[in-house]
């Protein structure tokens, strides 16, 4: 199955390079990448527009898929996604502040704000969720994440309703899109993303034990605290990178692990591997579709992914004999 998925991903990437307002043959796409001709418009479209957005889609999709799987494992809540642990809200608030008070205007300029906001929010959620008696229980993490989201969203709205210019820039960032970022942005974020991905892929055995419940995991010799800290770090790095790249994308992190479970069963090592591939497939496919359904304009990937993913999630919840995690 994993091999099939790799082939599907390759196909989606090729589609993403070839399809759009200007259709380009697969042969010309390969030429554009291997031996570009500067005067050839098709080649320039591929290199300057389509390659960056495809790379961004690959990176953000993989990061969100992995992060979602870890979050659902750590919080043992099937509703966990980057929106849940306050990550998106933190990033969004930082971007709003960046626009409103520091005059950032381009998605490329939002990167550091988004990253810092996401990291700070996750750190706060973990600190609150793990303090008090009982340590970081799944329920406390989920509640503190949602509560922090509530508080931050209030502040965001406060700024937006009083500042029309910021609202105008922010509303386009907030839907989540792969356009308007160059490869330089991706290169800045890449190291963080890679470290996060490695941490994530290593956390599989720990998540398997956590899934048995804290007491049993502890009894089997697992350091619950260490597993939680490692996965928290992975979440910060992955979600921070993804949000910095593509804006607060919803849904990918939520739906991908559920799809992955269909293929892989309940072993987190496999869930993570499948999520790593399914994330970019979903995100890039959504981006391609968004280019096609509104020609000559296009619809942002973040919107398409919700429309595309929601029926999948619904069909899925209907068909399977779902159980909570």
């Amino acid at each position, binding site marked *: 199955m994993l091999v099939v998925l790799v082939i599907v991903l390759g196909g989606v990437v090729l589609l993403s390079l070839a399809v759009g307002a200007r259709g380009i043959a697969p042969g010309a796409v390969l030429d554009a990448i291997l031996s570009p001709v500067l005067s050839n418009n098709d080649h320039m479209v591929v290199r300057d527009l389509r390659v960056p957005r495809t790379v961004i889609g690959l990176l953000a999709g993989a990061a969100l898929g992995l992060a979602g799987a870890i979050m659902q494992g750590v919080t043992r809540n099937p509703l966990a996604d980057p929106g849940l642990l306050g990550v998106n809200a933190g990033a969004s608030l930082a971007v709003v502040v960046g626009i409103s008070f520091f005059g950032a205007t381009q998605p490329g300029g939002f990167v550091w704000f988004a990253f810092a906001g996401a990291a700070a929010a996750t750190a706060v959620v973990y600190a609150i969720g793990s303090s008090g008696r009982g340590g970081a229980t799944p329920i406390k993490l989920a509640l503190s994440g949602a509560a922090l989201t509530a508080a931050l969203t*209030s502040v965001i709205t406060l700024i937006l309703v*009083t500042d029309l210019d910021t609202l105008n820039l922010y509303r386009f960032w907030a839907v989540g899109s792969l356009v308007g970022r160059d490869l330089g942005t991706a290169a800045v974020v890449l190291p963080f993303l890679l470290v996060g991905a490695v941490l994530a892929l290593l956390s599989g055995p720990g998540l398997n034990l956590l899934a048995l419940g804290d007491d049993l995991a502890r009894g089997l010799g697992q350091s619950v605290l260490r597993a939680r800290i490692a996965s928290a770090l992975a979440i910060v790095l992955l979600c921070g990178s993804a949000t910095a790249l593509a804006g607060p994308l919803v849904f990918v992190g939520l739906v991908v692990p559920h799809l992955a479970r269909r293929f892989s069963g309940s072993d987190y090592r496999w869930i993570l591997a499948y999520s790593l591939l399914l994330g970019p497939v979903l995100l890039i496919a959504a981006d391609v579709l968004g280019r096609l359904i509104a020609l000559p304009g296009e619809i942002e990937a973040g919107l398409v992914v919700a429309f595309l993913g929601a029926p999948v999630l619904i069909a899925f919840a209907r068909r399977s004999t779902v159980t909570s995690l």
Partner: protein
Amino acid sequence: MTGVATRTGVRDLRSRRGRRRGAVIGVLIALVLAIAVASLCVGAYPLGPADVARVLAGGGEGRENFVVLTLRAPRLVLGMLTAVCFAVAGAIFQTLLRNPLASPDVIGVSGGASFAAVFAILILGLGGLAVSLFAFAGALLVAAAIYLLSARGGLNGFRFVLIGIGVAFMVNASLNFMITRADVREARDALVWLVGSLGSARWSEIALVAASVVVLLPLIAVFAPQLRMLQLGDDTAAALGVRVARSRLVLLVLAVALVAVGTAAVGPIAFVAFVSAPIARRLVPGAGLALIPSALVGIVIVTLSDFAAQHLLGDVHVPVGVITGVVGAPYLLWLLTTTTTNHTTNRSQS
């Protein structure tokens, strides 16, 4: 001997819990009264508590009457009524679906109302009561859709939540689509509606909300014991004589009706449904449903937020929903760090 000791122990524990619950409710009511008095007195035209009492009793002059009876009181009353709607509905949703994240604002019911209302504002160019009707219909439609999609061999709480989340994503994406395509000024109007505002409170509107609440709350009180048994798990509840599927459906319909009424009147005041019950249950540990404390907590959050929205930000008047998150959420966060986890919610989680 031990039997007797345990029995007295249980009785002790019960009465201690009862006292705690009584004390919490007393403090909450006192808080509500204090905020209410402050809301009626403070403003650009300040009045003393005695003056306000005189005006309410019917002995006011023209200007005082206008300030208290037309400007301040409707706002306060509407805030209280809708707070009860949201808080009680949130508590029922969270209990029924056994997930603290499953409040109506998370699973798309409020989102359905928002979508319909924003559609009415941005695409159809409507305003006022028409928008409220759209919101009401939107909430009901979305809830019905979630229910029909998830009903298969009885209501599975987890499936309901998952499908609700899916619907919420679609609704929110549609909202974002409309907001990114609209003129930025209209987008701001839509945003103001989306966070919930008490600014347009009129007595005629309040009468409608009050009538709905008067009908719905007693019905909920009738079904509350069954909800309490459902908390123990479906099998136990069935063994105790609860008709599980029917009780669930009735309670769900009642909760959705509350949300629809509240949202239609003031917009989905952000996070009241989500934070009220968890706060109340941490204030009164082991209280089970805690519907009354939840409602009181909701009232405190909304009235306090509206007071802050009007008076604490200087000349900037913002809609109440902007503040509720800032008022309610940090308190919930603080409670999370200081109190032990509530066992009932904890068990239903795992």
